[in-house]
């Protein structure tokens, strides 16, 4: 009962034959071998599997791969596609926004979406935006710091046309 779908993943068109019941997260991890997207709770709670679908954060364990047909999916692998860390990645590293790193791909993608919409978020807005992503290590303090630092970095580099293009690509 295969179904043919074409999904633009990290800018590349991918066509595959999938079963209708295949979840988007399994499509990414098993068919495309993009294992940066993690499966945490598998019950729509933790946000570890968050990816961007047409720019919007979605829990990829709670969407069917066939539903992504014709859409744009962005995973953590796209963030450093150019070989340099995305400002959000650099800030998570710099500010110790992770310990074990399991929730980090989801945290960063939600953060990227937040910063695209609100380039200068308050602490409250960051905590609110990330409230669907659970971290068991950090206590969130450094995650909030990292997002603030990324925001400042992205604002500063927005003045430089080349860097602005690099961050807008994600």
């Amino acid at each position, binding site marked *: 009962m295969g179904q043919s779908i074409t999904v633009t993943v990290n800018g590349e068109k991918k066509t595959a034959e999938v*079963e209708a019941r295949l979840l988007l997260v399994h499509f990414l991890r098993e068919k495309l071998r993009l294992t940066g997207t993690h499966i945490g709770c598998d019950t729509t709670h933790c946000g570890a599997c968050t990816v961007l679908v047409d720019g919007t954060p979605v*829990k990829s364990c*709670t*969407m069917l791969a*066939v*539903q992504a047909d014709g859409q744009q999916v962005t995973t953590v692998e796209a963030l450093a596609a150019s070989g340099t860390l995305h400002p959000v990645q650099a800030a998570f590293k710099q500010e110790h926004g992770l310990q074990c790193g399991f929730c980090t791909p989801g945290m960063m993608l939600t953060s990227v979406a937040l910063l695209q919409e609100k380039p200068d978020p308050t602490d409250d807005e960051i905590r609110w935006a990330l*409230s*669907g992503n659970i971290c068991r290590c950090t206590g969130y303090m450094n995650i909030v710091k990292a997002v603030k630092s990324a925001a400042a970095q992205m604002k500063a580099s927005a003045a430089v046309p080349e860097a602005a293009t690099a961050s807008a690509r994600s």
Partner: protein
Amino acid sequence: MLPAPFEYHAPRTTEETLELLDQLGDEGKVLAGGQSLIPLLKLRFASPAHLVDINKIKDLDFLEERDGTLRIGPLVRHKAAERSSLLASRYHVMADAAPQIADPIIRNRGTIAGSVVHADPSGDWGTVLLALDADLVLRSKSGSRTVKARDFFSGPFSTTIQPTEILSEIRIPAAKPQSGGAYLKLERKVGDFATVAVAVHLQMDDGKVRSAGIGLTAVGPQNLKAERAEAALRGARLDDATIKQAAALAAEAAEPKEDHRGSVEYKRNVVRVFTERGLKRAYERARGGG
């Protein structure tokens, strides 16, 4: 976890959807946001033979006031409600509830209509619609019918919708001047289901209550409408004694069960306190404040 196998359909029009549902009967299930249905499929609590995905039908995504009615289409996501300036300015109970549904990522995808049809007794939108005295338009291939929210819910995860029907529109009487509302929810953490929540909607008329709507979440086998409390408010001035009496009646209407979220007495008391606070907040908003 993988759902049981099913056949997937993604119709492009409402007519095509209704035709499919008509053919499939009990075997078909509508997929909107999927934030409740997909977890149920994964847990194998549900295993429909056919899924009819309506996400590609863009004209089902509308949230607008027209002809004296607020109309909400089947694909309006929680996020759209959360960000709607129309709801923020005139439909306070909805604007209050939206950001308290699940978590921000789920709100990006989950829909109001889907949540209503899912009919979880701990769901929030059903309660809000009970307070607003909403009408639900149920459409099938053979026609459409309109059901009051209070006649729609029939038990835990049960409603009067037929497998061949979709909830094609939620209709709420357009907000008039001197109306106000509030939604108060107690949850242990973001994304948890409500321990208790209370929806209040008030229509005032020269200092007196013209009509009141009170809905209760997670304290019964379905979302409840506290009708005796509503009746006690009708025609009354909203002084402290009236508010206390209505809150006591709402608490009486609750039928909570003890669980890890609290005892029967505790939950009943939260209903009382939230009804009091909700009425005060709604009254303030009806007078143009808050």
